[in-house]
């Protein structure tokens, strides 16, 4: 319930939200957690496995129990932390992980059968029968042991990601972080101060002690105001640094608009990548629990949280509060509660010699051995004193420095006897210094001093110096602790609240020889899921150490991996949803093609027209057949701008090409075009295409659309690494030109109407031409087998030129043709695409072995002659159906007609098929020693589509094998 005066909340602004349909109100400055406690709600969730009632345990984002779903329209954000979410009007919050209602959870029965659900029960129970796992056991277990749900709708929330840079990144804005930021900022460094909370000051906002004669939170506000006024400081609140990565890069999540009711177009979160030259890590420490019977009942909380809720939010977590600790810090809670008039029913200290006094019952050298009550604490049992009525129990087992980030690069923290905790060791993350409680310095004065000192260390490494700020007066006392991990006794004592792991489970793991801490973790699931063991790791390994007879340092910790807190994948993938996944490249003819209803297909990042439907055509095949016939009888226009065009110049350009291609290009004369094949270093075909000699020492290489980037990268590699001796320069000119194929017997007529002066180019010739005075390039090359040209104009004219070409072609009985027709025509001609040169074929396989020059060296030459690449290869063949079944499918396998269609008997496969209006179904494929087997009949089996076709193997060139049409 709410205390009348305490807290950093704005009582003038009342806000409310709903939790499972009930409305709860609080104030601006509240979290959902403090609002619920103020409304006396402790039960907030159900545990993972046993569905035990669970309540808020802490006041920080490490809370293992306060995970809920946020519902907005059709969106569900799961695993939202009650302790981190600011109270915003109208939030629709629902509890998660229960069947039935939160109050009456059907699966609580799991708790009654718990002896059968102990650690490792999956592995023991669900081994047999094997097939049951996937279909029966797993779905049931998943349902029962769920966390939050997703809406299963596409994500419609906005997210954001960004880069930031600084000299010094300060993580955490408690006393150490503030002093570090001040020190770095005064030295002139570019500083980013990242704070997870929505107000700066860290733990100072939850404590009552003073710094420099002022309340700690006021002192913090003053310093933050100073920092905010400095130009070289960037303050980032609501920002959790989630990971430390190579090269001083840190990942961070900023909760941008979770605190706003209507954020408009603003994103929910921004995922930051911060590149920092140095870092002061001052993330503080987290209080840890003690394991005893029923220590997971709602109302059992961390002692620091009990006073945190009181001091920061003005919320008393109970009317009759008991406290149980093994250290001096727990006593601070007693002092703050007493000062605020909250009734303390018992103070239990496990240390017989603890130096504490107070106006409430104190039990020294005693333990809390059990908690009464089910959905809420009703009382506690104290060893030697019996049962006492209480509605809240604050527990402190000491503090664990938050060593996560310093350990993210696989460093291992060191055990410190004095504070009974792990602390980071120097240089775990290069450039990072650890300050304050995160480094094991727990006194306030020590934290202030440590912040200055660590910042100076970072500044020194950056070559920066400045006058450090004076260290204000603050409490310098060290808290004393005597380790206590578990209270001996019967019943289940909980270690990991999020994964329902008990002391018994860890002991069982040790007993079953899962003695390594990493094995224990996986056997028991301790330390997994959203909280990643923030509350339980050290306690669990202490229990393991005890069970295995080793010390804690020898037992060690599990591996700390990013992210520190859960990060929405949507934040990391911001702007990459849908079309944002990859950029789109559009040709200059794209809009016009779409206007005339051409369906577009993706080719790499490009979009190309599939076919151009005419009135009355109801099936793509009708359009495709018409377009093929049109090109073969009249003239067709196709946009081929997407093919890669690389301009290559220099005294050694010819030599460079000779080294790249298997055939020779240095002999190519200006005005001539040659087809070439290039290999990878491993001897397999990388790409093919034509290269034209534009002028002396000046070539334009054409690549396939798909491999344009790969070939460019290959050229850079060859030029920079393999042949830096060659004087050659090259650059992509793909985008400079809009290039169109003009193919068919009437192509020459069409050109004569378009060009200012049509040259009489021979087959495989090229030259400069002009269109209305605009310089263009003409190539007489053919991918259809027809008399054909490719004409390139500056891209700015692409659209109007395409329009003009279409009009001329249509007047001659021609028109545009798309990828389908282009593909049919190239199959008829046995021309290659990346369906055939798919990365596993040699030049010999595709019938180009004779092109491999014996007179020169070239990339892949030696590797191509390896044993295995030379003999018994699957070779390019053509195929056509000969039986009743005419269907051919790419990807189907060849078998002898009488062989079983099983893997061992396969002799090759098909790569491309198409319907030739002239020849019917035809295809290309690779068949073992196929060149010698033309005329043979085989069985073609498509196991996926269940089609078996009798085929005849033939030469891969179906049409005009002499190439007379293209040459004439």
């Amino acid at each position: 319930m709410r205390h009348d005066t305490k807290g950093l909340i704005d009582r003038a602004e009342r806000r409310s939200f709903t939790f499972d349909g009930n409305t709860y109100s609080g104030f601006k400055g509240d979290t959902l957690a403090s609002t619920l406690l103020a409304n006396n709600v402790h039960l907030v969730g159900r545990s993972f496995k046993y569905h035990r009632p669970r309540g808020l345990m802490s006041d920080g984002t490490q809370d293992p129990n306060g995970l809920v779903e946020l519902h907005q329209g059709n969106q569900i954000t799961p695993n939202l932390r009650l302790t981190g979410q600011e109270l915003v009007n109208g939030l629709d919050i629902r509890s998660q992980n229960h069947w039935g209602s939160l109050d009456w959870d059907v699966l609580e029965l799991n708790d009654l059968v718990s002896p059968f659900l102990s650690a490792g029960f999956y592995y023991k129970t669900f081994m047999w029968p094997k097939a049951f796992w996937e279909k029966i056991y797993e779905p049931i277990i998943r349902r029962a042991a769920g966390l939050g749900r997703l809406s299963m709708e596409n994500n419609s929330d906005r997210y954001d990601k960004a880069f930031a840079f600084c000299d010094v990144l300060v993580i955490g804005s408690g006393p150490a972080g503030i002093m570090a930021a001040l020190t770095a900022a005064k030295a002139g460094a570019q500083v980013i101060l990242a704070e997870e909370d929505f107000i700066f000051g860290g733990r100072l906002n939850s404590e009552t002690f003073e710094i420099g004669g002022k309340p700690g939170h006021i002192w913090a506000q003053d310093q933050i105001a100073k920092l905010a006024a400095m130009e070289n400081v960037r303050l980032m609140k609501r920002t959790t640094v989630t990971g430390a990565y190579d090269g001083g890069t840190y990942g961070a999540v900023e909760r941008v608009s979770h605190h706003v009711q209507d954020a408009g177009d603003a994103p929910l979160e921004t995922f930051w990548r911060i590149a920092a030259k140095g870092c002061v890590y001052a993330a503080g420490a987290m209080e840890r629990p003690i394991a005893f019977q029923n220590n997971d009942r709602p109302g059992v909380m961390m002692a620091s949280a009990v006073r945190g809720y009181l001091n920061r939010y003005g919320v008393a977590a109970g009317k009759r509060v008991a406290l149980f600790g093994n250290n001096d810090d727990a006593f601070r809670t007693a002092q703050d509660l007493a000062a605020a008039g909250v009734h303390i029913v018992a103070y239990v200290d496990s240390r017989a010699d603890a130096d504490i006094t107070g106006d409430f019952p104190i039990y020294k050298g005693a333990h809390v051995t059990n908690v009464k009550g089910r959905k809420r604490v009703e009382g506690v049992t104290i060893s030697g004193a019996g049962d006492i009525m209480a509605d809240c129990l604050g527990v402190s087992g000491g503090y664990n420095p938050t060593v996560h980030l310093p350990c993210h690069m696989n460093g291992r923290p060191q055990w410190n006897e004095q504070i009974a905790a792990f602390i980071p060791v120097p240089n775990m993350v290069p450039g990072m210094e650890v300050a304050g409680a995160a480094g094991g310095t727990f006194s306030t004065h020590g934290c202030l001093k440590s912040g200055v000192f660590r910042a100076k260390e970072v500044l020194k490494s950056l070559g920066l110096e400045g006058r450090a700020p004076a260290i204000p007066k603050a409490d310098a006392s060290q808290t004393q602790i005597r380790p206590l991990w578990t209270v001996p006794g019967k019943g289940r004592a909980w270690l990991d609240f999020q994964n329902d792991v008990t002391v018994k489970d860890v002991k069982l793991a040790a007993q079953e020889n899962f003695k390594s801490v990493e094995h224990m973790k996986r056997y028991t699931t301790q330390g997994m899921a959203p909280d990643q063991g923030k509350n339980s790791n050290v306690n669990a390994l202490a229990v393991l150490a005890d069970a295995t007879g080793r010390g804690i340092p020898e037992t060690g910790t599990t591996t700390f991996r990013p992210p520190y807190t859960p990060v929405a994948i949507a934040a990391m993938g911001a702007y990459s949803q849908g079309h944002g996944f990859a950029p789109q490249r559009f040709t200059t003819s794209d809009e016009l093609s779409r206007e005339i209803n051409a369906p577009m297909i993706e080719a790499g990042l490009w979009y190309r027209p599939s076919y151009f439907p005419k009135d009355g055509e109801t099936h793509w095949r009708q359009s495709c057949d018409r377009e093929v016939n049109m090109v073969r009888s009249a003239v067709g226009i196709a946009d081929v701008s997407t093919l890669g065009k690389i301009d290559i110049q220099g005294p050694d350009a010819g030599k460079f090409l000779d080294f790249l291609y298997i055939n020779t290009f240095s002999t190519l004369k200006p005005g001539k075009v040659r087809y070439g094949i290039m290999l990878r270093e491993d001897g397999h075909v990388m790409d093919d295409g034509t290269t034209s000699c534009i002028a002396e020492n000046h070539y334009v290489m054409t690549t396939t659309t798909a491999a344009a980037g790969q070939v460019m990268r290959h050229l850079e590699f060859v030029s920079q690494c393999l042949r830096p001796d060659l004087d050659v320069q090259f650059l992509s000119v793909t985008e400079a030109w809009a290039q169109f194929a003009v193919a068919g017997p009437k192509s020459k007529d069409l050109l004569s109407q378009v060009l200012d002066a049509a040259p009489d180019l021979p087959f495989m010739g090229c030259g400069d031409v002009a269109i209305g005075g605009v310089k263009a390039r003409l190539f007489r090359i053919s991918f259809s087998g027809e008399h054909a040209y490719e004409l390139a104009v500056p891209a700015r004219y692409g659209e109007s030129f395409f329009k003009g070409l279409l009009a001329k072609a249509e007047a001659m009985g021609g028109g545009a043709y798309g990828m389908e027709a282009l593909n049919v025509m190239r199959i008829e001609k046995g021309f290659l695409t990346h369906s055939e040169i798919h990365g596993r074929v040699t030049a010999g396989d595709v019938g180009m072995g004779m092109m491999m020059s014996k007179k020169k060296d070239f990339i892949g030459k030696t590797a191509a002659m390896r044993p295995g690449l030379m003999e018994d290869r699957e070779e390019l063949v053509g195929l056509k159906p000969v039986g009743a079944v005419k269907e051919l499918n790419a990807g189907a396998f060849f078998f002898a007609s009488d062989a079983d269609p099983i893997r061992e008997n396969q002799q090759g496969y098909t790569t491309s098929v198409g319907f030739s209006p002239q020849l019917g179904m035809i295809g290309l494929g690779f068949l073992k020693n196929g060149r010698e087997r033309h005329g043979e009949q085989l069985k073609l089996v498509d196991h996926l589509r269940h089609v078996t076709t009798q085929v005849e193997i033939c030469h891969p060139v179906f049409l005009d094998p002499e190439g007379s049409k293209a040459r004439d």
Partner: protein
Amino acid sequence: MIDLIAKSAADGLLPVTIGSMTLTELPLREMHSIAPFKGAKVSAALKKATGVGLPDVGRGTAKGGVEILWTARGQYFLIGATPPKLSAAITDQSDAWCAVVLSGESAPQVMARVCPLDLGRMGEGDVARSLVGHMTAIIVKRADGFEILVFRAFAKTLVHELREVMVSVTAQAALPD
């Protein structure tokens, strides 16, 4: 005859103004790549012919409407003039790029979301090759913002992605503390 009509890459898509920022397309300009051959000294000849010599790595130099940008290892773009004959590979890049300028107070915040470089360190006239979203780009720091060049065919994606971030940045600036 065919009537050839020149169309810039982002024709019909720009300008757009969102919040304090404006994204505009630069008009089509004459632009040539210049990559000197081994040992060739072309700066003096360029300066004589165009008034501008080769800039340092990561820089651009401009004078009288002519500009040369460093664009890659051993490669420069001459903008606004025709290159003389040089001992260098020269290609016409005038049509190959979509060139836009993002200007306004929040432009740096937008760039921090699409480009992984520390653009705050760029001075006026500095040039960088980097990414804008998933696209490779040439980025030039201008007095009033950033000039961005991506391949012509990316124009729609460039405008779409920058718009989206401009909207987000503008909305973020309006959020309460």
